[in-house]
């Protein structure tokens, strides 16, 4: 990838100034230059970056260097605090109307992910909040958009209200509300057609729907890969509809997602949810602080750790952490972990959350094929007890024996050994990172 995280970027500047007692204006200037580049590469809007940098400069100059922090870390800290402050706290509450039904309107550009998100929200409302939502198909324009929502409805076993493609979206929405009242649905989620923010006719249509159904929530659905234009889109939708929140989609991709920051800056509306996959249960509360790390290129380590924690039992996790830290992680642990990891979900999802994982050559292959896991298991199972504890024992004849025993080849065995070493290194990084989060040693792995 062409992009480096902010941490990588700052490294050279930091080297120069470690050991100084104060962050000088020149230091800050050099570092904010790098911060600026990192933010722009992450697709944060040019003007938003400009404002941010101004504030960061003001805050960073003249600061005493804390003993526990290098000046570089300190700048990162300021930057991260600024970003997190800008993004606001976590707000994934969904409004509840005084009188049912509560009406949610989904809006956004073409291809942003409105229909899928409509399905996900309905699923969330039912599963987590025990509600009974009615889905409404108001996209009469895109071919088969109604079928798409109907299919999702079937998958979820939830009702979908539609009147075909000849009806007027405003009428559809209105009738849907009546129907919801009759059938005692407590939520109505209206899926609207994707449209350009500069398409005045279609924007007018949204205003009409809004004035007829009086929604309690108007969500703007935005693709997290959006570039500089995110500000124009968010500003227009917000000005014309006074949106109540934002849903950021496709965050399971590898985009930095700077659009999140731009949108928040221009609308000051909360980003409520994040779409994390194509499946209907992959909608999560949006975590502003994690997004800040992600934009800065520090990986979504926290999500990973949280994910690990819900699946790995506490005590085992503690033991593992110790082992990771001491680098005493063995193939036996690896085998055991693989079982745990399998429970966490698709491997490449996990790997894509680890900072720098895609840069490590050995890992690039490791993340690929879930079938490969069975090979790996076979190889480890063909090792002797000692070999599993101490990979340095490995020599040509042992490797040959293992390959034969596991029905693989020596090069496969070699590959695994290499991957194992890479993995150990990475684990060490991760545990350090995690500690940093807790505010204890505050040592970042990249410094």
């Amino acid at each position: 990838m062409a992009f480096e995280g902010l941490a990588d970027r700052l490294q050279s500047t930091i080297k120069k100034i470690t050991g100084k007692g104060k962050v000088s204006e020149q230091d800050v200037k050099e570092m904010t230059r790098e911060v600026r580049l990192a933010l722009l590469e992450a697709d944060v809007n040019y003007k938003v970056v400009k404002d941010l940098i101004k504030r960061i400069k003001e805050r960073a100059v003249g600061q005493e260097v804390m003993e526990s922090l290098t000046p570089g870390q300190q700048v990162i800290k300021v930057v991260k605090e600024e970003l997190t402050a800008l993004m606001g706290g976590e707000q994934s509450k969904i409004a509840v109307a005084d009188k049912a039904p509560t009406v949610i309107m989904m809006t956004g550009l073409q291809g942003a992910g409105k229909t899928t998100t409509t399905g996900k929200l309905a699923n969330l409302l039912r599963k987590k909040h025990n509600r009974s939502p009615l889905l409404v198909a108001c996209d009469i324009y895109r071919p088969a958009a109604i079928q798409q929502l109907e299919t999702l409805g079937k998958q979820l076993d939830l009702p979908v209200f539609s009147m075909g493609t000849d009806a007027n979206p405003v009428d559809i929405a209105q009738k849907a509300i009546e129907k919801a009242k009759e059938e005692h649905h407590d939520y109505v989620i209206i899926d609207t057609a994707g449209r350009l923010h500069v398409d005045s006719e279609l924007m007018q249509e949204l205003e009409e729907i809004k004035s007829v159904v009086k929604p309690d929530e108007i969500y703007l659905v935005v693709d997290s890969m959006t570039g500089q234009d995110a500000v124009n889109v968010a500003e227009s939708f917000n000005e014309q509809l006074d949106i109540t929140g934002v849903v950021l989609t496709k965050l399971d991709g590898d985009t930095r997602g700077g659009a999140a920051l731009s949108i928040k800056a221009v609308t000051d509306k909360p980003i409520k949810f994040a779409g994390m996959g194509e499946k209907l249960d992959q909608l999560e509360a949006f975590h502003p602080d994690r997004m800040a790390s992600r934009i800065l290129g520090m990986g979504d380590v926290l999500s990973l750790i949280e994910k690990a924690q819900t699946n790995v039992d506490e005590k085992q996790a503690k033991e593992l952490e110790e082992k990771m830290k001491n680098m005493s992680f063995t193939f036996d642990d690896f085998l055991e972990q693989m079982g745990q990891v399998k429970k966490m979900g698709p491997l490449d999802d996990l790997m894509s959350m680890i900072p720098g994982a895609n840069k490590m050559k050995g890992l690039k292959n490791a993340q690929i094929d879930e079938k490969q896991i069975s090979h790996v298991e076979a190889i480890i199972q063909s090792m002797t007890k000692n070999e599993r504890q101490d990979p340095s024992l490995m020599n040509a004849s042992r490797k040959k024996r293992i390959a034969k025993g596991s029905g693989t080849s020596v090069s496969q065995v070699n590959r695994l050994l290499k991957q194992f070493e890479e993995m150990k290194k990475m684990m060490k990084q991760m545990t350090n990172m995690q500690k940093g989060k807790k505010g204890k040693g505050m040592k970042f792995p990249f410094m």
Partner: protein
Amino acid sequence: MGFMDKWKMKFQKNEEETKEVSTKYKDGMKKTRQSFSGRINDLIARYRKVDEDFFEELEEVLITADVGVSTVMDLIDELKMEVKRQNIKDSKAVKDVISEKLVEIYYGEDDEQTEHLNLQEEQLSIILVVGVNGAGKTTSIGKLAYQLKQQGKKVVLAAGDTFRAGAIEQLDIWGERAGVDVIKQNEGSDPAAVIFDGIKSAKSRNADVLICDTAGRLQNKVNLMNELAKVKRVIEREVPGAPHEVLLVLDATTGQNALSQAKTFSEATDVSGIVLTKLDGTAKGGIVLAIRHELQLPVKYVGLGEKMEDLQEFDAHAFVYGLFADMLEED
């Protein structure tokens, strides 16, 4: 003859044509009428001196168009050097240098035109269409089918997106609109099998072109990228020399991630060209400059709306004009 002169000649020769294309772009993009060089003139006129302010605004305009920060920095550095070397003090004279550099970034060493589709005579041509979710693949396929059919070609579509709800029906409706056959199986079936079927049917119908739709996928999903590579292998196996085009559909609103998309999709399927969609919005799609520059991937088509006719062959001049339009339009 220098590169710039050649380009100028081309520009003048095509002035009528360029104007027409620009007008079309304008309708789509709601931009003004003046030619690109005229616009640059305006910009230059506002700044008498080529100074830091001038370069800063240039930087802002380009970055805001999603050109990408490193490309812009390089460009500006080169411009500054060039300005110094030629001892340009007057902003009017910097115009040529800007145009030259920008076009250079796009075309690189060769200014060869690679916009046209590689279609076979007297033989089935296969076009594989790939891209992330919601980029505009299915819509672009509908538009392209219509366009090729207008040119007298017999076109068949294969509904290779068996995953997303309603995807097959969507392509079916486009097939109906364009008046071409759609080969499909049930939702959830193996995409490679659908494409295989599509090839067989296209052959037996003596079709000229088969366009294969695929499910949208994010490029970091390794399993899904492998699935795509498999689809391509099936095509290669069934028709030697195919696929003749692998088109990556990119949403113009996408930021820097588009470069990662282009790289990873190329690794999996050897992309031959780009369809840049949704240029009728306010996004500029500047990232294709970097994509062309770094990966030598040409843009072949641009999408300018949701109607069947809203697909046009890419025009580099009109595109560059679009990047600047806002800066040039001010007051």
